[in-house]
């Protein structure tokens, strides 16, 4: 049996779109996850770095404070922690791609907290 050319085209196009969507998902957290990550950084990283990220027990994480710091080392600090300091490793809680997204946002000025995801009940 031979498929009509239009079906083949459609299948190829949809397949390509799925692959693209999958590939970008691996690089960029989706909107819901971005909201979760922004909430986590503001609130939970904020317990040491401050809700405004102006610093606390941990250093300030504002765009000005991080200016000139290489993104790679920031990613490594978040992902693997910094031994000898209270900075814990966040591997297991966030993926490396998510850490990269967080660092990009920190370097350009972190977005505001959109709140926790909807209440479960």
């Amino acid at each position, binding site marked *: 049996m031979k498929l009509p050319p239009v079906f083949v085209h459609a299948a190829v196009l949809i397949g390509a779109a799925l692959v693209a969507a999958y590939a970008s998902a691996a690089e960029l957290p989706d909107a819901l996850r971005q909201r979760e990550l922004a909430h986590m950084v503001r*609130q*939970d990283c*904020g*317990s040491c770095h*401050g809700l405004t990220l*102006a610093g*606390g*027990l941990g250093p300030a994480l504002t765009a000005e404070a991080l200016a000139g710091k290489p993104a790679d080392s920031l990613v490594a600090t978040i992902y693997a922690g910094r031994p000898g300091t*209270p900075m814990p490793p966040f591997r297991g809680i966030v993926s490396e791609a998510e850490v990269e997204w967080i660092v990009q946002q920190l370097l350009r000025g972190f977005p505001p907290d959109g709140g*926790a995801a909807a209440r479960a009940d």
Partner: protein
Amino acid sequence: MSSASKIPSVPAATACRAACAQLAPLALWGLLLPAMVLLLSACSTIAPQAAVRGTGDLGVVIERADGRVKIVETSGRSVLASVQGLGDLSHASVVFSRDGRYAYVFGRDGGLTKVDLLTASIVGRVVQGGNSIGGAISQDGRIVVAQNYEPGGIKAFNADTLELIADVPASYGGEGKRSKVVGLADLPGNRFIYSLFEAGEIRITDFSDPGKPVTQRFAAGKQPYDALVTPDGRYYIAGLFGEDGLALLDLWQPEKGSRKILSGYGRGEQPLPVFKMPHLRGWAVAGGRAYLPAIGRHEVLVVDMSTWQEVGRIPVKSQPVFVMARPDGREVWVNFAFPDNGWVQVVDTLSQKITSTLQPGRAILHMEFTPRGEEVWLSARDDNRVMVYDTLSHEKRTQFEAASPSGIFFTSRAARMGF
């Protein structure tokens, strides 16, 4: 509401006592009686008496993201009012005036705000530091002290006016470095004790001559992160992030210096990640034992306070943050660091066993017992609510809405050393 403080009942009573003590001549009565009638009628025309209430069941709930506090009362479990304009309240903490009327709220941004709980208004505010972590109030209630990360040190203020009395930098080393200050607590005699995170020291500053503070120094250990004074004011215990153990100072015999307790509690094992620093206060003490959060281990350490030896360790759900004894000491309630901050566990202090594992809500940041401990209030940051639990049944009694609530502070702290 603000007129509640101005009821002229004292002059009226004084007039009566003066008049009744010795019978005045008739002419004097002619003057006194109309005056008394006037004063008494003035009394009755003063604002409605609904405003008159005690402060022993009051408290505040921090709404951390909005720079606002809710004023609450625990008898009817209700919210009385909100007060806003307190700045950045992430990691806010509160101490109370000795009459339980005023809350001194220390904000992360260095703001120190004095809130009148009866009139629900701000009666004083100063921005005293760049980055602050909390404060304490003196034994006589006249001095409020803020502990600062930036610039590292403590500052003392007049509790009435919030005027600066003294600035004591936490300088260390030779090059004018300043350390972040943690674990501040009041001691008898208008002294304050605190620890220096980078410098690894304990310091006591004596404000008995407020303008001329005198500071003593003791060794703490590596990276003290918070500390407590036992309810009797005798011992100061500093938790250490950088080593397995805690520093202990006997404040009745400070000349003996500090020493380590629970050294090596990590048993040489790789510590687990700590996503939030634990908080220490005198609530750790129950039945002659102190219940202390381990760092990097999912355990509560139990130490006998007569020998300072470890007498047990209780495995718990995750990294403990608040390990709080119910006021009668029969139970210890424990909450946890991110990402396990939806859990709360209750330890029975006789059996040293966990009797309840609760999931009250998302991101339980703080717990506060009512003064006699029949209820505990819990803040669920990510559910935007405060929940009230019965401490006998461990069942929820009620809840109310609050925006991103964190600390809950009841005025019963006003009467406790180290709070």
